[in-house]
């Protein structure tokens, strides 16, 4: 909190804090800073604001420069030691501490590595917070029918089943937060013990699990991917499972929430499949992994689920919504049970995700409604959840008979 206080003494007060975390690419940070300053000046000309940017100089200092930047002082958070993840999570904490120290009414996080430096994003992310009294403005992206599959097939259905109100893109690197949520996130424990948790997923989960008001806001472009498919899935699973353990007193009792308010006009996902979806390549990657990872999965999954994965055909259509939901909860349970030695478990789900993505892409080729398919997947997660809660260590939810067989779906 010392650095944030020092900055607050300089700034005294700012209604809005724009945070630009991470940022080893100085050019991208500069571009994002410019976009943020222009966005503030254009859409919120009467608000005082400050920008906190990662990278560049060492230590927290203020910088002058162009007139707009003089109007919106920029605080450099410095290049931090350690891995990029650790540096990023420290930046997040510092941004929220700064927001708390200067009594900001809203915080907007802009990712310099997303490849988007849009002034409109500032307005889109702040409007639900400043005008709509929401605590979290999560991004909603346009895109092809099969883009953003990790949020659509894993993060969103799992989060929605667990916490009720949950955004479609909890890993979206740009979001807005209220003063109330910023205060909570300033005190948030970003480290799970096995390393820093994915900050965006943590922020979305904390907001949903702790009863903050969550809305979505439409942004014009989907950001460039930060990770490849396997790494993204591994990190998303590690973050989600760690947060499930952290909020294990909350989610077993939480009932499913309604769809949340969306600011802006969401682009409906196109019907039909994506021609460039490399489903065949994913199926091939899964088949190769299945030969090698069978014993590993057998150690994690229930015998029945493991047998279904082992006996699945050469394609991926056997990976149904119900089977995927069971797999995810069984992985989460195994991760929870092996608190000291389960660090390899999230990585083991990545090939299964590729099979699920291939099955989804193939199903979308059959000209079906993509949104409806995603919602059907979410319903399966909600159907499986009570069985998972009953087996969760220390859970005192209503007991169910042992095994995920406790959940019955029409599909299974």
């Amino acid at each position, binding site marked *: 909190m010392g650095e944030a206080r020092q900055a607050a003494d300089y700034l005294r007060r700012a209604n809005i804090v724009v945070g630009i975390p991470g940022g080893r690419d100085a050019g991208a940070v500069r571009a994002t800073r410019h976009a943020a300053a222009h966005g503030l000046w254009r859409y919120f000309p009467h608000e005082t604001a400050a920008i906190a940017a990662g990278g560049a100089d060492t230590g927290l200092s203020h910088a002058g420069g162009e007139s707009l930047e003089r109007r919106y002082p920029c605080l450099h958070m410095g290049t931090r030691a350690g891995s990029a993840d650790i540096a990023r999570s420290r930046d997040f904490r510092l941004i929220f501490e700064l927001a708390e120290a200067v009594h900001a009414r809203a915080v907007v996080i802009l990712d310099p590595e997303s490849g988007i430096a849009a002034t409109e994003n500032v307005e889109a992310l702040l409007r639900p917070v400043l005008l709509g009294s929401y605590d979290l403005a999560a991004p909603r992206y346009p*895109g092809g029918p099969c*883009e*953003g*599959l*990790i*949020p659509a097939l894993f993060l969103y259905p799992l989060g929605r089943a667990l916490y009720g109100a949950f955004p479609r893109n909890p*890993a979206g690197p740009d979001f807005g937060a209220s003063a109330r949520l910023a205060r909570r996130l300033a005190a948030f424990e970003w480290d799970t013990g096995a390393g820093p948790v994915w900050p965006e997923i943590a922020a979305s989960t904390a907001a949903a699990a702790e009863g903050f008001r969550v809305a979505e806001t439409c942004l014009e472009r*989907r*950001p*460039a*991917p*930060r*990770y*490849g*498919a*396997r*790494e*993204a*899935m*591994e990190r998303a699973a590690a973050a989600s499972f760690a947060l499930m353990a952290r909020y294990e007193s909350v989610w077993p009792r939480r009932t499913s929430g309604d769809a949340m308010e969306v600011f802006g006009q969401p682009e409906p996902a196109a019907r039909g499949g994506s021609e*460039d*979806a*490399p489903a065949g390549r994913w199926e091939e*990657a899964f088949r*190769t*992994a299945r030969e*090698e*990872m069978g*014993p*590993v999965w057998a*150690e994690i999954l229930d015998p029945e689920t493991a047998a279904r994965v082992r006996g699945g055909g050469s394609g991926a259509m056997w990976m149904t919504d119900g089977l995927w939901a069971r797999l995810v909860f069984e992985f989460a349970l195994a991760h929870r*049970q*092996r*608190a*000291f*030695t*389960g*660090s*390899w478990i999230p*990585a*083991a789900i*990545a*090939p299964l995700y590729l099979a699920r*993505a291939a099955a989804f892409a193939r199903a979308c080729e059959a000209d079906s409604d993509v949104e409806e398919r995603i919602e059907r997947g979410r319903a399966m997660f909600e159907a499986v959840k009570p069985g998972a809660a009953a087996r969760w*260590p220390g859970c005192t939810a209503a007991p169910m008979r042992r095994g995920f067989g406790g959940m019955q779906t029409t599909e299974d």
Partner: protein
Amino acid sequence: MGEMLRKVLEGAGHRLQSQVTTYLPPILAAAVILAVAFAAATALRWLIYRIFKGLAIDRFLRRSGVAYVLDPSGRLRATRIAAETAYWGILTGGALNGISVFDTDLTSRTVQSFFVLFPKLLLAAAILVAGAWLSHYLGRSAVVWAAGEALPAPRRIGALVRVVLMFAAVVVAADHLDFARGVFLAAFIIVCGGMILTASLAAGIGAAGEVRRLFEQSRNGEERDAEPVGWNHL
């Protein structure tokens, strides 16, 4: 001749009587002790299965991963460990008591050696369990890592990690027990040194280009599993 035969038979009878009166009572006593120990062990095992739950130990076994090392299905429970430990402990105690009834040099030495070696055996067993636990954990991590990196034969890589670590644990246990310590240590150094030398030669001669390409890829931050342009999982 008849008299001599009678004396021989009488001598044999006396000797036999002496042997029987010397050894049969201890054998009977040992059998009784063993029977009592068996009955007590069975009764105690039955009792432990019914009254001991050991939930905290179960939780520790699962969280630490030891449960999966001792039983791959992960269904090993503290109740079973406690019951079986008590059962075999009482049986071993009964056997040692039974042996000591004979009161010979050999039996006395055996019992004495057992009690001298017992703490060492316990520690050696703990070393082996710890080695098995570490090799299991790192072996699994190696399989998942190798599969994620698309390396050839991930399971063999995982098995190799397990074997090397388990071998190291055996070397440490043998050293602790002072059992052929030189043989185990030399074998370990020869095997590991040989493997590293072989791998280095193979990488240097046969796969230098591939290794260089991988390092350059890593330095340039290229994604090995990069999707087609425009594709985005997030």
